[in-house]
């Protein structure tokens, strides 16, 4: 009965369209035109019943829109994230209704917390079936509300041009984020008189960036100029705002040591003399300890995540805090600021640079150097130059640096390998460190690397993944096979869910509860997808294998067997202050 109604409806709509004039387009065509108008060239997606009209229209747009067929919608959205992160453009993802849409949820949450601009299009059942528990119907709008910057359900094709324009504007403006547009099947089919596409540049209730207040800039500059031990901590905001140059100018003029959150990595090169390293739980020794010693803390485009601050009531209590952020909700959310510099850091940083004195803070820098030396002696030297038989994760990254010279895009998953890679990878360029920061999504790296490569085809993209995380989304090897995209994959296999094991070792009396994970033959798995691979466990074979991987035309999977029970240090144990960071 229901099927009959639908068939009838499609028939009527189709009949109408035959009679209609040429200026009429279907909702699906209007959507694809809108994407082209927004400069979209790549879509990651997976078809299904409720999005079939869009895929039917896509058949005729094949020359202008490159659709990448993924193997799972989660893979699709992570690819969209990787694409957005390397290209700086909005990632576009297609999925069908019901399970297709719910499979996007992890990626949406990841993009929301990491401020990644995405526009996701989901198909939905016919409008007249909404709320009837129709086949593959799920309440996508309500499911995704907490994990989207904005979402909207389209039930009438005439809404499509305006809604898509709004979607792109919202996704990329201000603090970026994911937007989901749910389009009912009838709206995809419906023909309407199309009057062209107008980009959105304004929504009356939405202020993407707060107005810059000169008095705060002035107050901030005064604080900085009077500071004896100022310290800059920066986050992804610098990259999202394309303010790398402005940031570099500010750092270089003020001469202030600067440390990064993991999503901020690469905004200025790793070897920049004022770059003192990484913040947070597994960050560098000096940046963590000296956070509690600085007199003025200048936070730029970062949100004081608990992995960065450690115990909040013992975090930088001695310091006056200057917080630059585009999102007013971040000011005073976790750390009370002395001077809030609201605004886009691309605008605020040059204003601040103009007012700060040129200094070099030599004695203060020496302090960072002392801590760096201590950390090198206690941790880094043995991690990068182990004398044991077994390989360490750190030496793999070190060897890789020698081949990439710091020019590659490094995509990491979540866990020990992620921390090691972020700590030791050399990044010369911005948009080079693609990882799941806020949500900590295992399974992120492989699909994100595929997207990252599509977003930066001229660059080498290397996915570094643990043996656990790889098995969460390894179906995307199929996407690599089918598209022929060139992604280098390094699996750092310690035969454990390493980070959880590390915590169990340190805090749960070595009670290794369900962290002992068995893996398939990864090289054989890659071979099944016609991707060449190699497995190494001897130090002598490592450089050659990495070279072979980098020189291989096309994708390559390199599995490296590393020490089973190695720990990532330094470490700020949960509930401890950043000054209580442990070297062992």
């Amino acid at each position, binding site marked *: 009965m229901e099927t009959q109604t639908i068939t009838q409806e499609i028939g009527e709509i189709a009949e109408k369209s035959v009679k209609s004039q040429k200026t009429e387009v279907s909702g699906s065509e209007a959507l694809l035109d809108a994407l082209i108008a927004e400069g979209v060239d790549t879509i990651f997606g997976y078809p299904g019943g409720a999005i079939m009209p869009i895929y039917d229209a896509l058949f005729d747009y094949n020359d202008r829109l490159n659709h990448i067929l993924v193997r799972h919608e989660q893979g699709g959205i992570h690819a969209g994230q990787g694409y957005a992160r390397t290209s700086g453009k909005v990632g576009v993802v297609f999925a069908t209704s019901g399970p297709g849409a719910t499979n996007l949820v992890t990626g949406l949450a990841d993009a929301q917390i990491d401020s990644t601009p995405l526009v996701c299009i989901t198909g939905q059942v016919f409008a007249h079936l909404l709320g009837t528990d129709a086949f593959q119907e799920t309440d996508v709008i309500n499911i995704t509300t907490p994990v989207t910057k*904005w979402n909207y359900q389209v039930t009438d094709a005439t809404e499509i041009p305006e809604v898509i324009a709004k979607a792109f504007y919202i996704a990329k403006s201000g603090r970026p984020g994911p937007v989901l547009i749910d389009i009912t099947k009838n709206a995809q089919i419906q023909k309407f008189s199309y009057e062209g596409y107008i980009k959105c*540049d304004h929504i009356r*209730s939405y202020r993407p960036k707060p*107005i810059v207040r000169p008095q705060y800039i002035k107050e901030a500059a005064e604080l900085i100029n009077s500071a004896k031990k100022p310290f800059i901590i920066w986050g992804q905001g610098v990259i999202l705002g394309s303010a790398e140059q402005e940031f570099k100018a500010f750092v270089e003029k003020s001469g202030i040591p600067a440390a990064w959150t993991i999503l901020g990595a690469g905004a200025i090169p790793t070897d920049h003399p004022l770059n003192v390293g990484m913040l947070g739980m597994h960050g560098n020794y000096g940046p963590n300890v000296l956070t509690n010693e600085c007199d003025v803390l200048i936070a730029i485009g970062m949100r004081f995540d608990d992995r960065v601050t450690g115990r909040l009531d013992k975090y930088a209590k001695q310091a006056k805090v200057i917080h630059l952020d585009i999102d*007013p*909700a971040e000011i005073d*959310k976790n750390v009370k600021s002395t001077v809030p510099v*609201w605004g886009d850091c691309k605008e605020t940083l040059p204003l601040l640079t103009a007012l700060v004195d040129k200094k070099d803070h030599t004695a203060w820098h020496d302090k960072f150097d002392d801590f760096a030396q201590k950390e090198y002696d206690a941790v880094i030297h043995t991690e990068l130059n182990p004398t044991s038989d077994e390989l360490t994760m750190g030496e793999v990254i070190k060897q890789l640096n020698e081949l990439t010279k710091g020019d590659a895009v490094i995509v990491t998953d979540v866990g020990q390998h992620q921390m090691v890679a972020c700590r030791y990878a050399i990044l010369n360029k911005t948009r080079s460190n693609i990882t799941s920061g806020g949500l900590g999504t295992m399974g992120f790296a492989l699909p994100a690397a595929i997207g990252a490569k599509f977003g930066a085809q001229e660059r080498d993209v290397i996915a570094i993944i643990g043996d656990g995380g790889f098995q969460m989304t390894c179906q995307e090897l199929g996407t690599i096979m089918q598209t022929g995209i060139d992604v280098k994959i390094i699996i750092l296999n310690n035969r454990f869910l390493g980070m959880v094991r590390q915590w169990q070792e340190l805090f749960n009396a070595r009670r290794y509860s369900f962290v002992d994970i068995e893996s398939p033959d990864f090289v054989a798995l890659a071979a099944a997808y016609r991707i060449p691979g190699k497995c190494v466990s001897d130090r002598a074979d490592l450089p050659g294998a990495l070279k072979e991987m980098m020189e291989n035309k096309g994708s390559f999977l390199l599995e490296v067997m590393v020490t089973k029970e190695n720990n990532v240090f330094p470490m700020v144990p949960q509930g401890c202050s950043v000054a209580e960071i442990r070297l062992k």
Partner: protein
Amino acid sequence: MENQERQEYNITVYTENQIGLLNRIAIIFTRRKINIDSLNTSPSEIESIHRFNIVITESEDVVRKLCRQIEKQVEVLKVYYHTNEDVIWQELALYKVSTDVIAEKVSVERLLRENGARVVVLRKDYTVFETTGHREETDNLISILQPYGLIEFVRSARVAIIKDSEGFNSKIREFERLEPGEEVIENEYLNQGAKVFTM
């Protein structure tokens, strides 16, 4: 210094009239396991703009953060918060009682006068009274009518208007006039003078 004491706050939210926005606002509270004591939403004096009045019991620090999260939503125009001292607020209550009983046993005129109530409906079988006021006032009439067989009672959410003479009307009007690209909204950190939180 900010008030860290938990007390009732009246949150006023001006929004677009959009499906799903109520949920988007509600989950900002539920995500943090904060109970909404009272919620009223209705069209404002300006067409297409809706006004929410939300009452919660929290410290000022929490309330300010919540307001910023609400204001961050794309379809929210403006958010303000006030303590009970800063607002004039009322709740409306309706009481249904048996006409026979009430006519026989009570001096209706006196009851109405003493409680600032009025008769909304007078039928053979029942009478509906209405009163507006603070919670204690509407509660008081319940206890008075209870002995006479209160059949049904209902109370509205709270509506509140700020004492600050400038009010919101002129501010919200600015949104109506707003041309694309024109920036008219202040982003003061905390306007202590006017005791109004704005961004």
